[in-house]
């Protein structure tokens, strides 16, 4: 299958690969997986006291599209507030990377990883001015 230039670029030069200490209170960790293909994705965000994402890292075991999707979102996340980060949609990721329909689930994985990371961060501490009700992602904790 032919990958787009953007996918190849992220695949060959992935941005922000790495790991933060998951027990650090400023870090939110999102772990997601795609049972259909066995891909595993870990996305971590480092959040400032003002609720802005200062840094993001990922580690993905999966196909080129999954790696590119997670690499891309680490770039997009930096500088965003948590609320802005939650607005990132898988369709934007798929569009940016020109993912074919069979690979759209990789962008879903990346979107879900963002939500899981934010959920994890928020369960560590409820920031002033943001209530838990603003948390739109109860799913990661449900299973």
């Amino acid at each position, binding site marked *: 299958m032919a990958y787009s230039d953007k996918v190849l670029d992220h695949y060959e030069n992935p941005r922000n690969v790495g790991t933060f200490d998951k027990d650090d209170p400023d870090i939110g960790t999102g*772990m997601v997986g795609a049972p259909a293909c066995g891909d595993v994705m870990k996305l971590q965000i480092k959040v400032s006291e003002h609720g802005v994402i200062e840094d993001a890292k990922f580690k993905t075991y999966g196909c080129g599209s999954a790696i590119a999707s997670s690499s891309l979102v680490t770039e997009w996340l930096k500088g965003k507030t948590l609320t802005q980060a939650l607005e990132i949609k898988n369709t934007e990721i798929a569009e940016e990377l020109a993912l074919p329909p069979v690979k759209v689930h990789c962008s879903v994985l990346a979107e879900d990883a963002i939500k899981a990371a934010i959920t994890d961060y928020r369960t560590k501490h409820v920031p002033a001015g943001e209530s838990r009700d603003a948390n739109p992602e109860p799913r*990661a904790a449900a299973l």
Partner: protein
Amino acid sequence: MDPAPGKNHFELFGFPVKFDIDTDELAARYRELQRRVHPDKFASGSDQERRLSLQMTALVNEGFQTLKDPVRRGRYLLNLRGVDLDGETDTAMDPAFLMEQMELREELEGVRESDNPPKRLADLANRIERRMQDKIDEFRRAFADDVPEGTGKARNAVREMQFLEKMRREIDNLEEELI
């Protein structure tokens, strides 16, 4: 065991719809069914007979491939219970399980640079097989409880097995590279 269209795989092979299956008996029935529907037997038959023979041969093959493999059998059983695992986009899984999968893959990544790659790879393969057996047992127990919670647990077990299968494939690939 009467080969006819419209039967599920278990019915086609004359087995009760449950997870445990005698794989020797399955293989024997497969050969018998293959023989009975084989297109060569209908070479001089009517168009309809020949078409049916081809159709049944495909069904018998598909059924055998599905029933002999525990993961595919599990998926199929859930499917019969109305749980569709094809094309699902649910990415929420037990975080501890995913973390373990991440660590297993990191370990696989390190095999090549280790001092004894074949041994490290064999150790890893053994652990994956044990985990797979755990999940198979988990599925069997959960699926036997014909209640929503049981079905949900069985679904989780199959979803997790698919990650272990991926590990298996990657271990096989590396094994071939190491030879």
